[in-house]
């Protein structure tokens, strides 16, 4: 999620330099100097070669933001303030009471949707304790690994990619603490770069990412390219509705302080119909969709038919007909 916010911010600044000044609570002197050194080092970093992703894991982790240097579409002058802001709280990924608390609260609901959808599609027993045994899953924009770890515990072979190096570090350290999750592969790179390595996955997950990318269609094309034939993809995002504006932006960012201000931009939200069309163009057929609702009284998220704010979609890629 934070990796995606990063991309959003970069794209915003690429297009609208005037926005640079509109970020509140950002430029303290200390931050400014760290930003200067950061942007200098970034431009010097070479792009990562992606012949052997496993070997690259060690390498790219130390490369900083070099991973993005060669993707002209997603690259833009960094919104260093946002980067610094997220990098600063990267350690708090696994603090359940910290800034990522809303995500932790929402996570079990997302995982239960993924579990039921994937079990149904791949014909696994939903009551087995490791239903995803043998499935290769990738989480695009994995952040600190909040989604990767439960999936690994359910038996999947998980890969997580994110563009923020700190996130990958945090995710790697945390996953190493539990033998069940220490096999998760974390790589600091974008989906586009991974596509070039020709790796395919049974399930490609991009949760709360697509609302941050510059061009959703291109992003979905990359995701689709990562899906093995007969595989699936799960995308979740926020609906471009009035209710979502009130809930996800006004309430979450300004009133409740659940998210840093400027995390989301309402115009980048997609309606369910648009998402379905975009996926269709990338040869992915959406088979299931559900909404998440938050109950403020119990403090819990649950799945529902109400897709007016957060929603999640499960799509499958057809197996190409053999000639």
């Amino acid at each position, binding site marked *: 999620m934070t990796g995606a916010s990063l991309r959003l911010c970069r794209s915003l600044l690429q297009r609208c330099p005037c926005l640079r000044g509109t970020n509140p609570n950002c430029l303290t002197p200390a931050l400014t100097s760290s930003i200067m050194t950061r942007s200098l080092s970034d431009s010097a970093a070479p792009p990562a070669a992606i012949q052997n992703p496993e070997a690259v894991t060690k390498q790219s982790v130390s490369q900083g933001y070099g991973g993005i240097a060669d993707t002209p579409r997603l690259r833009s002058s960094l919104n260093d303030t946002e980067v610094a802001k997220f990098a600063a709280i990267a350690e708090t990924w696994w603090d*359940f009471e910290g800034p990522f608390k809303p995500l*932790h*609260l929402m*996570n*079990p609901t997302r*995982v*239960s949707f993924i*579990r039921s959808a994937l079990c149904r599609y791949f014909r696994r027993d939903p*009551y*087995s*304790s*490791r239903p995803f045994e043998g499935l290769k899953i990738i989480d695009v924009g994995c952040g600190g690994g909040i989604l990767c*770890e*439960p*999936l*690994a*515990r*359910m038996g999947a072979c998980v890969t997580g990619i994110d563009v923020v190096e700190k996130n990958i570090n945090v995710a790697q350290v945390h996953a*190493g*603490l*539990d*033998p069940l999750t*220490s096999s998760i592969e974390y790589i600091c790179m974008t989906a586009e770069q991974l596509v070039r390595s020709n790796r395919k996955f049974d399930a490609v997950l991009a949760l709360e990412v697509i609302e941050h990318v510059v061009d959703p269609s291109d992003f979905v094309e990359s995701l689709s390219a990562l899906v093995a034939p007969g595989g699936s993809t799960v995308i979740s995002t926020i609906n471009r509705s009035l209710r979502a504006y009130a809930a996800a932006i006004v309430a979450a960012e300004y009133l409740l302080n659940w998210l840093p201000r400027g995390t989301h931009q309402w115009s980048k939200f997609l309606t369910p119909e648009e998402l379905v069309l975009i996926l269709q163009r990338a040869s992915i057929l959406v088979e299931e969709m559900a909404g998440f609702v938050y109950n403020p009284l119990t403090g819990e998220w649950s799945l529902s038919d109400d897709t007016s704010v957060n929603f999640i979609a499960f799509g499958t890629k057809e197996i190409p007909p053999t000639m």
Partner: protein
Amino acid sequence: MRLAKELNIAILDSNPALKLTVHFNKDGVPHPRVSTVTPATISFFKEVGAWEYVEKQRHAYFNQMQVWDYSGLGYTRYHSRDVGKDYLGCVVENKLLCDSLLSRLQNLDFKKTIHTCRLISMEFPSQGDPTTTDTEQAHMMSGSPGVVPSGNTVEQIRHGSSIKLVLSDGSSLFAKLVVGADGAKSLVREMAGLTTTSWNYPQNAVICTVEHSVENNCAWQRFLPSGPIALLPIGDKFSNIVWTMSPEEASIHKSMSRDDFVKAVNYALDYGYGSHPQSKFINGFMHRISSISGQNMASMEEHFQLPPKVTDLVSERMTFPLSLRHAREYVSKRVVLIGDAAHAVHPLAGQGVNLGFSDAAALAKVIDQGLLVGYDIGEVSLLKKYEKERKIANMTMMGILELFQKAYSVDLGPLNVLRAAAFHGAQFIAPLKRNIVSYAMGDQKWPLFT
């Protein structure tokens, strides 16, 4: 509960009985330590598959209950038919409860190991290296029956996030979750640094087994000036006595001769300290009230009865000091408390062990739900769901019991009349009676307004 089968469980209990394969023998006199299990607990045992072992041995279902006090101003009779059930509860010896669970455990095939040794220390994981231990003491599972499940990773490779338990036989275990079910003086609670609120009651309980010449199938409780005396059927013309009194009186009663004790018990249950409640005048008057409030229940028609005379004391007398203890937090990182380790209550309503079993059921459900979504079972946010569910329920029950205990500790005219009025209310107001019975049986979550 299917997912939890994959967990690796280690049970730590230094009670040597766990090593025995020969189980409970029916003959002999019932042991004085018994528990009254509510229908809710019985369903839990049935769900787990352990109740059938209990039914093979001595146990006593009862469907009637009478509660009165020394002032002679009122009484209440409850019958399970008041709420359309067959029994109010069942009295079972503690050893049998433990035994049935153990027998069931041995028939199940999941990864479990029983370590009959003491816990010496727990090392908690920190971000870096494990920290030094907190205290070094032994722990024993007292009174409360039940198993202690804790996830156990056997690999020695990466235990960065597990708790390391060092045992008295020199071995160590690594656990993702430690469940402290080790009683009111819980070591696990102490080592985890969970604090409690507690106070001692100025009362001790004397318990023993007595015999009658006739079968007893009702639970009797009489509130005396220094504390209640309860007579619970245990089967085969035996009954269990739980008599709460001041510590000095308790030691006197413990050391007096058998005959004197039997006489004292009969006196306490009969005309001692006050007269029988007058059942004639009030009944007729109250009849009108009860017909207004709803259907007449069978138990409202029943007159006051005397409990069967005790003919002999057949076991040793045991005394225990009584206190209330409640952990302020049930949960900390990778540690959760259930049963008496989390809350210890006054025995006056026989609820203690039932609260404990409800805790166990709730925790099992929460863990299963967590496994379904790939949670790390030691994660505090998951365990907090268990705490949220049980803490309020436990505190409500404790509050009610505390109210009773305080109400009966004062012998003052107006207060006696108030208590009598409460008795009459409970006896004759049908909805109230139904709520009380259902709540005490564990079928209802809250005492009123459900």
